[in-house]
């Protein structure tokens, strides 16, 4: 494999920085500072809990917005601005370009999340005045959020290979929400007497990425431990799904007529 995906990834990250994407960190910081100061005065007994819940939820929501809205424009923008043609005239294969674009956005998300993690840690220290061993669960919860964001980015990139940003956003959001309710959909099927519906809901359950499994916010907020088995299973699940989506995206993009 050539170094081209790496070059594309770095440039995608630089482009995101130039587009002032990381300005969301200012909002995150203000949110954390506000919560740390206000919550103790308006509620009872949940100062630490709110900081963790709010911090992790904000990391997830901010990341999700970035992953979807930037992800769906990754390929489309290059075609629209006609920069893709000059890029593809260089010794780079289409799949390498896609992988580079994907890695660039994931790198942006990782750096963004790292800064938010520091903000969350500072707010937590301000409220609790110390860190405890169980706070390690928060880092695992953040890692799970990152896995989910990487997966969402891959879905957005997949749709951006053949659809407009508007439709890609809708499709990605639809798959994300379906993925959250995957377990409920299967349970719903199990309640019916129709073997067809039961089969269809089971297929849907295994087809859509199960985002519910990546949510450990409540567990981390209560300082409970997250089993190691879940860490490697979620990692493997996300990796396999991402590879699957990138392969499918590359196949579609390679066959796409760009004229």
């Amino acid at each position, binding site marked *: 494999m050539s170094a081209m995906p790496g070059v594309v990834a770095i440039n995608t990250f630089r482009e995101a920085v130039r587009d002032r994407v990381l300005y969301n960190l200012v909002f995150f910081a203000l949110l954390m500072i506000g919560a740390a100061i206000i*919550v103790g005065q*308006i*509620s*009872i*007994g*949940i100062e630490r*809990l*709110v900081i963790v*819940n*709010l911090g992790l*939820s904000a990391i*997830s*929501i901010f990341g999700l917005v970035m992953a979807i809205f930037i992800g769906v424009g990754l390929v489309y923008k290059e075609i629209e601005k006609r920069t893709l043609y000059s890029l593809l005239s260089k010794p780079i294969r289409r799949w390498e370009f896609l992988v580079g674009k994907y890695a660039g956005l994931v790198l942006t998300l990782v750096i963004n999340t790292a800064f938010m993690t520091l903000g969350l840690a500072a707010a937590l220290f301000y409220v609790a005045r110390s860190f405890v061993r169980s706070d390690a669960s928060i880092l695992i919860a953040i890692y799970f959020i990152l896995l989910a964001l990487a997966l969402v980015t891959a879905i957005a990139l997949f749709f951006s290979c053949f659809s407009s940003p508007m439709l890609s956003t809708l499709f990605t959001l639809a798959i994300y*929400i379906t993925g*959250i*309710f995957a377990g*409920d959909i299967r349970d719903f099927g199990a309640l019916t007497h129709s073997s067809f519906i039961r089969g269809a809901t089971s297929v849907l359950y295994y087809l859509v990425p199960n*985002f*519910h499994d990546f*949510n450990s*916010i*409540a567990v981390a*907020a*209560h300082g409970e431990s997250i089993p190691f088995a879940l860490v490697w299973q979620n990692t493997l699940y996300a990796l396999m799904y991402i590879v699957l989506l990138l392969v499918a995206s590359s196949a579609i993009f390679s066959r796409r007529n760009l004229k």
Partner: protein
Amino acid sequence: MTNASQKRSSWLALGAVPLLFAALFALQTRIDARTRTEAQEELLLRSPRAIEKISLGYDSLLADIYWTRAVQYYGGKLADQNLHFPLLWPLLDISTTLDPKLLPAYHFGAMFLSEPRVGANRPDLAVELVKRGIAANPDRWGLYADLGFLYYWYLRDYGDAASAYLAGSHTPQGPAWMKFMAARLDQKGGSLENSRMIWTQVYESNSDPKIRKLALDTLKGLKAEQDEQELEAVASEYRRRFGRYPASIAEMRDSGLLRGTPVDPDGYPYVLEPDGLFGLNARSTVAIPLEPRTPPRSLAK
């Protein structure tokens, strides 16, 4: 556009924006004055399960928001001196369904629900809430202590109170005093001494100033009740010796049955009433706890 007119427009905008904001503020205040009371009593979504589904995985954050709303609702009602809390149970129900491990909602929520003086006077719902908390967090001894307290103080059910304390003592970190408390309740049931022990535990295990004040006030009341009982026993002894009740505390002192002038926890002397009964000074803030009223069953959940 010339430079001068550009400058004029900028100054105009600079003046107009704050003025418009001030006008908006005045208008919003007028609208709020008309609609605020109605809005406060509203809870658009009452189904905890529905809220859990639409939270899209952010259920624990939503639980914190609903719990904060419950605290604000309770505090607002107290500030308005309105002890009718129709939304308290739904708010607590939603908070604890969204996050079954939200311990403050069980602990403080039970207090808000059960208190007759500063709460909804629904110990039955408080018991239900704490039992739900125990089902979701069986290892948390504090919830068993809350349940024992509710049974003991509000429902006067000493058997169930003893069982709750005993169950709490069996949890991994259950303190030894719970077993001791269970044994005492089994032997003696309700007594001033047990009440003081239980309220001392409430005082020591809480950091919330409102609940600590409630516990401290109750402890003062219990101390006064105990003092009065002891003074009445001395007055009875006086009657046994002299054939009549004492006419004043000075008489009791002169007889040698009493040393000094007994004062309540606020520092005011107790007042001797006819027939050897004792009461509190009119200026004292101490209040002897009332027997809990029967919960109004007509109130909907």
